[in-house]
């Protein structure tokens, strides 16, 4: 099973994600509400997958954080977002994400997207 880091600033959603992924057999090695904190941990832990919210609490947003993760460590990324307009998609595309999970998403959608990312 995979080592996953989640970057999400909403505690309830974060908890639900952790629960769903754990039950699916994955290990959550870290969860963060700020992009800059996540980057420090990723440097150390080298996860198999990062789930990334776009709107974050810190100085950098999810896309900026994802860009660093992608080009520094080449770790696959799944975006979790309520954004779906063209401007966002165009911007986020440059970080070559594996998938977009548009909020609200079901547990089944989440598991399916994670499996797809890890099998790729």
């Amino acid at each position, binding site marked *: 099973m995979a080592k996953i880091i989640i970057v999400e600033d909403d505690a309830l959603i974060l908890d*639900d994600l952790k629960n769903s992924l754990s039950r699916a057999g994955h290990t959550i090695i870290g969860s963060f509400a700020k992009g800059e904190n996540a980057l420090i941990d990723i440097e150390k832990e080298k996860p198999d997958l990062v789930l990334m919210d776009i709107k974050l609490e810190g100085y950098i947003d999810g896309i900026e954080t994802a860009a660093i993760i992608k080009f520094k460590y080449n770790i696959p990324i799944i975006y979790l977002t*309520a954004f779906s307009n063209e401007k966002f998609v165009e911007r986020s595309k440059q970080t070559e994400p594996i998938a977009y999970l*548009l909020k609200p998403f079901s547990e089944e*959608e989440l598991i399916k997207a994670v499996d797809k990312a890890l099998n790729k």
Partner: protein
Amino acid sequence: MNIWALPPLISSIISIFILLYIFNLDLKSKFNRIFFLVVIVSFIWSFSEFNYRVTNDYQVALVWTNIAKIWIFILPLTFDLILTFVDKKIKNKILYYILLYLPIVSLYVIDMMNLVMSDLVKSYWGYSYIKPANPYFNAIYLILVTVICLLNGFLSLYYALKRKRIKDFIFLFAIFLPIIVGILTDVILPIFLKILVPGLTTACFTITFILIAIIIKKYNLFMPDLKKSIETILLTMSDALFILDTDFKIKIVNKSASDFLEYREEEMLNKTILLFISEKSLTHFIRMIKFAMQHDYIIKDEEALFLSKNEEEIPVSFSCSVIKDNNKQIIGLLLIVRDITSRKKLEEILEITNESFVNIIEKSIEGIIIVDKSLSINYMNPIAKRYLNMLEGEILYRFPYDNISSYSIEEIEINIGNNEKGIGELITIPTKWKKNDAFLIIIRDITTRKEIEKKLISSLKLKENLLAEIHHRIKNNLQIVMTLLRLPLRFSDNPILKSILLDAQFRIKTMALIHEKLYKDENFFEINFKDYIIELTDFLLSFFQMQKDIKVELSIDDVNFDSDTSISCGLIITELFTNSIKYAFNNKEDEKIITITLKKENNNFTLIYKDNGSGLPEGISLENINTTGLYLIKLLAIEKLKGMLEIKSENGLEYNIYFSITDDYI
């Protein structure tokens, strides 16, 4: 009656008619007078010839032949007529007339003394002279007559060839005809060939007169008499005419003058013209006419105010020139005065109109410029000068924007005062200026409008962003709701609870998809229903695809619904879809098909959901509902959509929902 007497008789009658014709035209012209005399002489001659041809009495014939001797005066008169016809000026008239008439008078006297012809002889055409009396006088007479005739002939031939005009050639023929016939019948035939023939000269002269009369008529040769013409002009001219002496006293005045000043002619004569001029323009008038006299100058179209009898001022334009005698001494002044009251009134109206027009244009808040095709400025109002940032008194010769074209509208930078820049709208309209093609350019200050537009756009953008943010937050919150719904499942394995919470998640997802579409398409009020149903069924299929192998067929008309209608229809489809998947196909081995159809007819819609499953479970009908799903469907179809619900359970299950929507949302 002797038939040979007829030609002179006809000639004399025609001569009378010609005389009357000329008399009626004008006897004051020189040509007219000479021609009149020629015809009179000719008439006497032909009438005498008729009489001595028709009579059998020798004595009577003798009297008439003596009268007929006057014919010889036709020769100098014809010569004079030719010179008058060609307008030849004679310098020494006395010598001219002596030279012309003295030989003829001499010949006439000789003839009257019976020194040319001897006696009368009666021939078959009547009495005539045959034999010469004194051979010397006879020879002199004949030679002189022939010479003058030939002189007349050559003179007219010379001018005809020189001037080469048709009327000159007709005149030449008219002169030549009696000369040739006369010389032939009266000289060559009887004297040289000894053949006696009746004279036809008078008849030929008649033809001559007719031809001359035709020329007179056709070419209007009679010039009107100058004095008579002047009198007519004075009487009929609309302008007032005054002839003044050197003391400015009125000597002659025409009818128009007395009409417009309302004085009788005698009231004006011998009075100074200055009495009839308003004090306001007296100095100017005196200066003008004195200038005309001192410098022999023609004053034209000067304006002054004349005074009528009832002291009313009449605006006039006057022209003035001096009149001189033969010694070139100034003897008076010719003053022509035109009443310009109407013109002045018109000018006044025009001036007022023009003033108003200029006032409007000059005070317009829009810049107005007229440029010709080469973009040279013909006119610009003050505000246009300000917009184009011109200094006070500066003249701009060329319009500073090159790319103007008819009916174009473009935005330019303008000066809106105090060196502040603004935005101007430059409108170009083709027009005419002083009869030439030109452009009317209007510059309108749209700075404020642009600022408002900018604010509006900014405000609109802000609202759009806010709406996008709201939709984003709704979706985020829906995720939290779904999370909360999943939370109890962590602590319970109850399958019924799991099913209820799963259904609730589907319903939330159905609504979230609406927000997703509204937000994504940036149309915050309506969504394309077909696209929405495709995404919804994709989601549902994707969720259930590991469990079921179901084929979904969609036939949805292209319509846009507002979010409320979309949510209602979406929830109905979600409920029916999950029901079909959960219950309808449980024991089905062959192909499982779900068909969703939306038909639009005007404002009426039919939503049909159909599956080929096991149909409605026994004991369940619209009247007897005992499931949440069916209750929700009925609630949405009847209460929310204000429609009708129909359920059929043949070869599966079929739901027909009929509803209408106002135009606002279609």
